[in-house]
């Protein structure tokens, strides 16, 4: 297949994957809701046109230097934020952890306040002039968002997204049980993602509870204050922070320098930077997200052994973490692509993909893991295992990217059965 033909096939595959991703994360409803809220707060087009013409006329009479000064003064600046009672300035992307014995406030420069409950974990992933994106990794966050027509505030929790436009609300997220609770005291929000699909608006006084594992949600109304969400079963035990180094220490942790290099696609440089810090030390001290990123950088930088080391450290140090399962998937991929002898590397790969499926049967990589398990077992000579995987794949993902291979494995199995006496 020549280069351009291969490129066109690659392009089609990229498009298919994107459509699949976009289909799982419906942004249209949330964007529509926000657009209509924005346009409702703005003057009509005729008045805006009149205002604009007047400004253009005024500007035409001024000197170019005065216009430049006016524009520069008028440029909106991104918000800033501080963490804690003493107000430590913080940066986007830093891990924020509330201690076990107290809440932790996050204050934004325009007046919005987010308070993390005890032991809650969060990250501010984006800040601009109009708002911020906060990812609630675990626990409770109470938000008091300053209303603004152009305000853009979003709180992500697992697969869910809470789009906020000037409200007081409480969000509680339990990643282990996949339970979300959003209690709204004032204003309006739209909660989307996961089982909520296109988005569910909430009005003041309503509480939404989503049960991801069970696959349903409920909305209660008529509550005057955001109540604490009552879990249907006992919550998972809090992690024993003394058992292994925590991902966040009380407050924020600086991202390592090699993360920036990895994000810029300079994988070899990122790995070299990690080596300078001491690769073993990085594996012994970094949290699960950093270890995943380190493993990626090592693999894409051409050092599979280092990648395997980072992933193994992640599984050893954080055995119950969802990212440890992702590490299992990564180890499977390394084994598959490795240079070990004959069928052994495929059998090892199959074991890791099975591990992922056992730990995360409905995880985001489940479809890929099952497809790769099928291929690994097939290449490793386990025909029966490959056929079982192929049938499971076709049952669960009849139109998936591995479906063609699954059908050929399954039909080869059927042909073998017919030939047997």
């Amino acid at each position, binding site marked *: 297949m020549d280069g351009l033909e291969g490129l066109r096939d690659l392009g089609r595959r990229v498009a298919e*994957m994107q459509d699949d991703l976009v289909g799982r994360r419906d942004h249209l409803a949330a964007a529509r809701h926000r657009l209509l809220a924005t346009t409702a707060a703005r003057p009509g087009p005729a008045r805006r046109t009149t205002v604009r013409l007047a400004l253009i006329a005024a500007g035409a009479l001024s000197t170019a230097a005065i216009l430049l000064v006016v524009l520069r003064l008028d440029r909106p600046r991104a918000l800033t934020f501080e963490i804690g009672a003493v107000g430590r300035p913080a940066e986007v992307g830093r891990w924020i952890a509330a201690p076990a014995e107290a809440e932790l406030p996050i204050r934004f420069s325009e007046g919005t306040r987010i308070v993390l409950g005890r032991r809650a974990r969060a990250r501010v992933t984006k800040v601009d002039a109009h708002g911020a994106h906060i990812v609630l990794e675990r626990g409770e966050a109470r938000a008091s968002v300053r209303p603004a027509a152009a305000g853009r505030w979003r709180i992500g929790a697992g697969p869910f997204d809470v789009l906020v436009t000037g409200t007081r609300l409480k969000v509680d997220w339990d990643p282990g049980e996949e339970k979300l609770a959003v209690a709204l005291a004032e204003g309006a929000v739209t909660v989307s993602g996961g089982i909520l699909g296109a988005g569910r608006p909430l009005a003041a006084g309503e509480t939404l509870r989503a049960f991801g594992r069970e696959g349903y949600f409920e909305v209660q109304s008529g509550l005057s204050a955001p109540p604490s969400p009552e879990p249907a079963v006992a919550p998972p035990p809090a992690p024993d922070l003394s058992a292994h180094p925590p991902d966040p220490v009380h407050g924020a942790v600086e991202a390592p320098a090699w993360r920036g290099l990895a994000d810029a696609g300079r994988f070899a440089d990122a790995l070299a930077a990690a080596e300078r810090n001491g690769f073993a030390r990085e594996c012994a001290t970094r949290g699960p997200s950093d270890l995943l990123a380190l493993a990626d950088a090592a693999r894409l930088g051409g050092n599979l052994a280092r990648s395997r080391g980072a992933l193994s450290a992640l599984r050893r140090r954080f055995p119950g973490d969802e990212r440890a399962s992702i590490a299992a998937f990564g180890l499977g991929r390394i084994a598959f692509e490795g240079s070990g002898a004959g069928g052994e590397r495929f059998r090892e790969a199959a074991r890791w993909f099975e591990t992922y499926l056992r730990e995360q049967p409905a995880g985001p990589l489940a479809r890929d893991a099952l497809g790769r398990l099928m291929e690994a077992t097939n290449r490793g000579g386990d025909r029966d295992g490959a056929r079982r995987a192929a049938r499971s794949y076709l049952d669960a993902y009849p139109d998936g990217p591995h479906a063609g291979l699954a059908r050929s494995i399954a039909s080869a199995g059927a042909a073998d059965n017919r030939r047997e006496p």
Partner: protein
Amino acid sequence: MTPTPKLQASRQREAPASAPARMGVVQPLPVVGDDTALVAALRSGHPGAAAALFDRYGTHVQRVLVRVLGPDPDLPDLLHDVFVTCLERIGTLRDPAALPGWVTNVAVFTARGLIRRRSRRRWLDGLFLAWGLRRVAVPPPDPSVSEGLRAAYHICERMPAGERIAFALRIFDGRELTDVAAACAISLATAKRRIARAEATFLAEARAHPALRDWLAEGTRWTG
């Protein structure tokens, strides 16, 4: 007795019977008709026109943004921004029948603006890193995005914005060259030139990348 005009107006503002009383939502009449009618409704400030524009072109704009930018956390904001820009600049559209292409242009230019801003920020971050002045904190990789997809867009991120956009529309979105030129508001010759350069860059880097090498060499691998 004939209702007084005030009473009629008050009745018109009552919420429909099917809506919860405390919501008090007034549903405007939907905009019907072709793009010429929609543009007229937008220019006159019809209350349902913004929703109609989004309903008609939301999926299309999302697809353009996704093809150009890849799996991007800013996608919801960009979707919103494209339509806000369309609403603000609807007065500049000379031919209402050209609305689809015009909306595509707005989407492409919005994406291009984001690409350029990020490129400037990355350049500055790189300087700071080199000087040891600041550590750049980055979010963890999204596990639901396949490595191949991430790798493809890593390569695209290093292309000049114009080449990247033309390449994405041609290769990922499967558009004809004339459509790519129209979407980017460039000549056909310029579109061909940009795409050819981008293809050469992408092929060279993809062949050296473990995740993409197989995709190029075995295009039908996963389909058996």
